[in-house]
């Protein structure tokens, strides 16, 4: 079996966070096709081929970077409910902590907060990051609320990927948020 090899596992009170794999593809595809992914695709409908490439980018980024975004699962089930963690395409100004929840029914339970807090701690503690941002589409009010709940603050001077508009939230370092 071909895998990403020795990737880390993170656990929180309710969640298990692991590297992405082929078992997550159909859930990822359903998310990309759903209205709830509109904020991460500029509102543009993606073809299945574009979804495949986006997902392979997420998987392959682990190999190129040595780190990547974690699939979020509930303890006791391996089913993916979202994705969170370190993310840095080569053309982005700086490394990001990202998050997505893939189904309506897993929203509103604090899972994204729990996952993002754990993957951010991993980035600072294990990857040695000195800073991290989250890039958020301005109409994405739930993600703005989550960034603020995570203690991140709007950084109006920070560059962002693409044409924008884009809100850049900068995360506090662990000693500041402790």
């Amino acid at each position, binding site marked *: 079996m071909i895998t990403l*090899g020795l990737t880390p596992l993170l656990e929180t009170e309710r969640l298990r966070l692991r590297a992405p794999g082929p078992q997550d593809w159909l859930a990822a595809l359903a998310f990309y096709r759903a209205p709830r992914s509109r904020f991460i695709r500029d509102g543009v409908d993606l073809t299945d081929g574009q979804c495949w490439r986006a997902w392979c980018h997420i998987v392959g980024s682990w190999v190129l970077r040595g780190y990547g975004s974690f699939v979020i699962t509930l303890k006791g089930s391996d089913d993916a409910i979202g994705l969170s963690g370190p993310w840095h*395409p080569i053309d982005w100004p700086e490394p990001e902590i990202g998050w997505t929840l893939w189904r309506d029914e897993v929203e509103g339970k604090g899972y994204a907060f729990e996952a993002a807090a754990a993957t951010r701690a991993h980035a600072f503690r294990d990857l040695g990051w000195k800073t991290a941002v989250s890039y958020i589409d301005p109409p994405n009010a739930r993600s703005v609320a989550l960034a603020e709940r995570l203690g991140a603050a709007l950084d109006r001077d920070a560059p962002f990927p693409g044409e924008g508009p884009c809100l850049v939230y900068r995360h506090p370092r662990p000693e500041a948020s402790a």
Partner: protein
Amino acid sequence: MIALSGTPTLATARLTLRAPQAGDWPHWRGFAMSNRARYSTGVCDEAKAWRAFCHVAGMWAMRGYGSFVFHATGSDTPLGMCGPWHPIDWPEREIGWTVWTDGAEGKGYAFEAANAARAYAFDVLGWDTAVSYIDPANARSVTLARRLGAVEDPDAAYPAHNDPTRVFRHPKGAAA
């Protein structure tokens, strides 16, 4: 360091074929952003080159197979890539090849690598057939497909976003 695990390594007379690694990125970047990529990925900016190579690496985990990076045995410098390739929106599975630098061209490396990767697809992966999608302007790849014993299949479908494309079909068991 994160590396793909469980991937095969193939050896030919002169070459080693292995799964892509993080250290291949600058070599791929040089290729993908050069005119040499005009018939495959198209000449990329850095952002597209990055996504294309993440797609290459990620496909191994997704499909259980993927394209091999090849280098001269005894050297770590990648010369190109070849082998099984199947994005989800392509009509069928391909044996592809790219040679990344001018200096690596004209030495028969792509033939040697593609021949080994094709044998792997048929013998180990159990493929029943395979094609190579080639830009009509890419005369060198057309020549290589024929040298590999592939035959043009004018009725075969090809990826919709790659129009026009010539499709060469590899006969199973016709290893060169």
